[in-house]
């Protein structure tokens, strides 16, 4: 069954610490995406990838890095976490035409 799995589901981090959010998809999709969701803003695109080894900047990439080591895995990295990065993060995967992308269940991150 097609799936996008995010880990961890919840994370509390300290300001200045490093945080890695992981995403795994079993759909053999080329494209993967990281969004964050904040009240009043809907989902905003942070980074995306067209395939293994590829990472592209979205609308709000500052403070985030991404890594796509394989077709299945796409990570979002906060090298120096800040309280403004407290949010819910969603990973998604899609085919070339992005039809019906599949979303993970989200990761709730709190940076204290």
């Amino acid at each position, binding site marked *: 069954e097609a799936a996008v799995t995010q880990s961890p589901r919840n994370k509390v981090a300290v300001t200045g610490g490093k945080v890695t959010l992981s995403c795994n998809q079993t759909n053999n999709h080329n*494209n993967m*995406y990281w*969004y964050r969701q904040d009240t*009043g*803003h*809907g*989902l*905003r*695109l942070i980074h*995306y990838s*067209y395939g293994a080894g590829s990472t*592209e900047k*979205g*609308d709000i990439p500052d403070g985030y890095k991404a890594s796509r080591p394989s077709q299945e895995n796409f990570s979002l990295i906060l090298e120096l976490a800040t309280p403004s990065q407290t949010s*819910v993060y*969603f990973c998604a995967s*899609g085919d*070339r*035409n*992005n*039809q*019906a*992308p*599949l*979303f993970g*269940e*989200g990761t709730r991150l709190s940076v204290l």
Partner: protein
Amino acid sequence: GDQVKQSPSALSLQEGTNSALRCNFSIATTTVQWFLQNPRGSLMNLFYLVPGTKENGRLKSTFNSKESYSTLHIRDAQLEDSGTYFCAALMPNYNVLYFGSGTKLTVEP
């Protein structure tokens, strides 16, 4: 950004009534998608649209590419329809979805 604007931002309906949500696009898009985020936070695909209309049960969606808008009609609203509805436009050259800020729908008995 402001590529996708949704209205209204919040809506309250009585059970059994009808309503429509709207998205306006300021980017050239060839496809539109509608999602429902349930109260637990999970995102569910509702529609994937090229210009035209699709219907699924009590939901119907239309995408008018010439006038750059899409609508989602809800007929005979039920309590389980409550949640936040998002539309998203595909930016063709980059194959990424841009989301609106959502419409929070509450259906009341």
